[in-house]
């Protein structure tokens, strides 16, 4: 009715593995709603956000208008910034009462994983109550991490409820229950809003790839279990038919069409399809074009990138002669010491495939090799076509390759059982129940995951250990934990309860940290495809690693077009773009770069993985 003045905000959550074009789709949607006259806010909760790159404008922790797009504002929830603000709020009342040294100690104590989790979560929920916008779009963190974030409102309000009922003496990991009264209401409202289809839509962005479809399926199901049913799909990066005029591309095209059909029949959800562009999508004009294609209302006519002259130089594979001589040194044990390899990079750049291919390449050279994923949304089971669990499993048909995954909920269960086992016999039943409830806090999962990571990182049963790590931002925070946990242990020392076990844990952490910092033992490989956003993200990650005393050692440039398939202008334009960014990568990182070619088929199964390994690292 005309006199209905209550303006309801609509929320859109963009889901998807990093690198599928989630940010681009979220930004294009934001541009679309803003151009329809709706007051729109785009929020990123991704620790490795690239909102600023996409809009070509600085975006910070405060809401700011996007230049040149009326009605559109943006904000970036940097977990580190959120943590600083949260810490300051807690410390303010103590300033002037406590001595500088004491304040410093307290400030360091606040550097715990709990504080970081708490701070970014609080800010996330804050943006679910924004009545001054018609539309709020969340460009969320990659799938696994996002799921946990969204699951938190449910989990945490249970934790708080138990605490209020006196389940465990009025405390939770996030502080005494009394302080959480207001937050609980907010958390409950957040989950309620997410469940109402008239308020919230979840949009899953995916590429027509087997692993991507699998991960989307998982995310869709998990959200439906939480009562969130208003879902849509955007399938991004489909090759245009006219670009596929050679046998290699025709094969890829046919595979993609098959997968598209699978998506259409497999998910009973509305689907939008976006074709791969020959160039990059950056800046307002490109976003407006995508918005037009997404919502069927072309805002501007499709413009075409100028055709590259056919005289373009073809790729030369002898560009990087230094690589062959160093690959061996970077990937295999030197001086009898175990080699540890970390693959970092934005999710979706093919990190898992590269890690799998690398592990086979190393194992086939006769080294006892272990591949571990710390990515909660891992798909190693699909890649190896074999069940992968949290215990190292020998890959069938291989003599030297074991694979394991760290599954956070499972790790948490194991951790809980272990703690409870230690407690049994020492305490009565009531006390045991209280401890068990305490262990249901979300912090336990983080902790348990981290313990398993440390256990693998400190395991010397293998000659080579390869980590297919979680997406960039999350990885960095995981890697930073050892430092934080040493501090956490110091707190216990200062409460005079340091035990033999504490000292052992601390020395184990120290060992893992120095191992990661020693290039003679450890190689940090960054996987990226040669495009602007992945390079920017990797640069930030490399600098952050440097800040904790770790140097990147190798770049894997993935999805490189093979030189013999450049049979049309679309492919040539993409090739020119790749060459430009390969040059940029060389300039930027100044470390060995290996090329991993685009394959005709998805990297599934040993045969293809072995072939890929040989093509990346040579024979």
């Amino acid at each position: 009715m005309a006199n209905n003045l209550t303006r309801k905000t609509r929320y859109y959550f963009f889901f998807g593995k990093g690198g599928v074009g989630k940010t681009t789709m979220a930004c294009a949607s934001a541009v679309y709603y803003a151009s329809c006259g709706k007051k729109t806010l785009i929020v990123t909760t991704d620790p490795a956000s690239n909102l600023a790159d996409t809009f070509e404008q600085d975006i910070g922790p405060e809401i700011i208008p996007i230049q040149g797009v009326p009605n559109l504002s943006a904000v970036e929830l940097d977990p580190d910034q959120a943590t600083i603000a949260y810490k300051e709020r807690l410390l303010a009342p103590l300033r002037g009462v406590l001595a500088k040294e004491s304040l410093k100690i307290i400030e360091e104590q606040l550097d715990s994983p709990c504080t970081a989790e708490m701070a970014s979560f609080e800010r996330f929920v804050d943006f679910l109550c924004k009545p001054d916008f018609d539309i709020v779009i969340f460009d969320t963190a990659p799938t696994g991490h996002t799921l946990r974030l969204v699951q938190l409102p449910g989990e945490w309000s249970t934790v708080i409820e138990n605490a209020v009922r006196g389940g465990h003496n009025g405390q939770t990991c996030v502080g005494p229950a009394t302080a959480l009264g207001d937050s609980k209401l907010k958390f409950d409202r957040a989950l309620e809003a997410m469940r109402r289809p008239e308020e919230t839509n979840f949009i899953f962005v995916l590429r027509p790839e087997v692993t991507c479809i699998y991960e989307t399926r998982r995310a869709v199901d998990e959200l439906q279990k939480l009562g969130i049913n208003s879902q849509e799909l955007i399938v991004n990066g489909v090759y245009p038919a006219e670009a596929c005029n050679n046998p290699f591309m025709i094969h890829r095209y046919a595979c993609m069409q098959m997968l598209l059909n699978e998506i259409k029949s497999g998910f009973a959800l509305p689907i939008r399809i976006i074709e791969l562009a020959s160039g990059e999508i950056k800046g307002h004009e490109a976003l407006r074009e995508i918005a037009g294609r997404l919502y069927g209302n072309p805002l501007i006519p499709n413009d075409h990138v100028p055709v590259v002259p056919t005289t373009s130089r073809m790729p030369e594979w002898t560009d990087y002669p230094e690589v062959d001589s160093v690959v061996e040194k970077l990937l295999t044990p030197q001086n009898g010491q175990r080699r540890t390899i970390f693959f970092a990079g934005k999710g979706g750049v093919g990190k898992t495939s590269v890690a799998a291919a690398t592990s086979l390449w190393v194992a086939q050279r006769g080294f006892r090799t272990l591949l571990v994923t710390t990515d909660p949304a891992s798909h190693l089971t699909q890649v190896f076509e074999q069940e992968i669990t949290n215990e190292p499993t020998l890959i069938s048909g291989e003599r030297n390759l074991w694979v394991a995954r760290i599954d956070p909920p499972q790790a948490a269960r194991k951790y809980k059982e272990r703690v409870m086992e230690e407690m049994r016999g020492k305490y009565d039943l009531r006390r045991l129940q209280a401890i068990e409830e305490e262990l249901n806090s979300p912090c336990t999962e983080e902790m348990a995951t981290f313990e398993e990571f440390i256990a693998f990182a400190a395991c010397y049963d293998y000659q080579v250990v390869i980590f297919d790590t979680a997406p960039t931002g999350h990885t960095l925070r995981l890697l930073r934990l050892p430092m934080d946990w040493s501090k956490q242990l110091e707190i216990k020392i200062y409460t005079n309860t340091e035990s033999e076990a504490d000292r052992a844990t601390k020395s184990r952490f120290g060992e893992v940290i120095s191992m990661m910092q020693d290039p003679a033992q450890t190689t940090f490989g960054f996987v990226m495809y040669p495009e602007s956003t992945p390079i920017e993200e990797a640069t930030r990650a490399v600098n952050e690693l440097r800040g904790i005393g770790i140097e990147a050692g190798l770049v894997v440039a993935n999805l490189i077009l093979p030189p013999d398939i450049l049979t049309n202008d679309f492919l040539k334009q993409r090739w020119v773009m790749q060459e430009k960014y390969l040059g940029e990568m060389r300039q930027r990182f100044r470390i060995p770069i290996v090329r991993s070619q685009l394959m005709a088929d998805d990297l599934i199964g040993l045969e293809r993985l072995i072939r890929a390994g040989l093509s990346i690292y040579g024979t």
Partner: protein
Amino acid sequence: MREIILYEPTLCCSSGVCGPNPDQALIALQDTIASVKERGVVVERFQITTHPRKFTENADVMKLMQQRQLEALPITVVDSKIIKAGSYPSLAELLPYL
């Protein structure tokens, strides 16, 4: 005795079981708290990093902290009177106040 307030240093969780190794001293404290609660006593716990304002609201606690800084923690207050500082009270230490 009607009320016990504990002013505590930073802990990840009240029982300490959330940390890398379970903390025996804190688990013992949980037992003590459960026992006095059974006798109808209200127990509140505040950590310096989660409830700094609760600390500043209590002048006695602040005074003690100004003197002994963080070493004063944990501070046990029974019915508005500080009865122990620097470590957690045992059940035996609390019983005389019951």
